[in-house]
């Protein structure tokens, strides 16, 4: 069974440019998460989807970040415009949505903003 797929794996952009990340969760997983991981820290949640509904986006900086999961399967996270401080690893995870379920992570997208 395929794991969580993310693309691109690496992205280098100049500040003020837009950037988008894509995630395809494990088949059948209703819950999808986007996490941000800064260097030397653990991942922190940006947004959680239950099917196509964003049920927790309280930590998403909505002035520049947006996300969508239109058909309740794959998801896109966008930053516009990017700032230097956005340089980090963006991780996508999915889970079955059955209570205390394990979250499975993709390989992440490493973003460098110059």
């Amino acid at each position, binding site marked *: 069974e395929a794991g969580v797929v993310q693309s691109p794996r690496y992205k280098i952009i100049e500040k003020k440019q837009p950037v988008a990340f894509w995630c395809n969760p494990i088949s059948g997983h209703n819950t999808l998460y986007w996490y941000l991981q800064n260097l030397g820290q653990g991942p922190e949640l940006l947004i959680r989807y239950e099917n196509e509904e964003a049920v927790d986006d309280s930590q998403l900086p909505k002035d520049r970040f947006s996300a969508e999961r239109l058909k309740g399967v794959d998801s896109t996270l966008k930053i516009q415009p990017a700032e230097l401080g956005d340089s980090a690893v963006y991780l996508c995870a999915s889970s079955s949505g059955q*209570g205390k379920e394990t979250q499975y992570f993709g390989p992440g997208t490493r973003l460098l903003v110059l």
Partner: protein
Amino acid sequence: DQQVKQNSPSLSVQEGRISILNCDYTNSMFDYFLWYKKYPAEGPTFLISISSIKDKNEDGRFTVFLNKSAKHLSLHIVPSQPGDSAVYFCAALKDTGRRALTFGSGTRLQVQP
């Protein structure tokens, strides 16, 4: 306010010996705990978990211990192998509310051959 803390940024052990990684938490509402392992350029990989109704869970060479009164958990790896060298993250979950994992900052384990 860091609710999950891993106070040791790094740990080095000899192959074949025991590795003990520690984690403390402050939020008594956490009721499920997980350990993830992360290799460079990869996402975190689930290792083992424990519910707050238990004090021990074992899976092969990996055992997690939970001390609720002390708000402390530990991961034991016996025997340690060079392939265990990675960053280990402790994470905690509340079954209600946000249901987002709260991670510690990680401990880098180096197993020396």
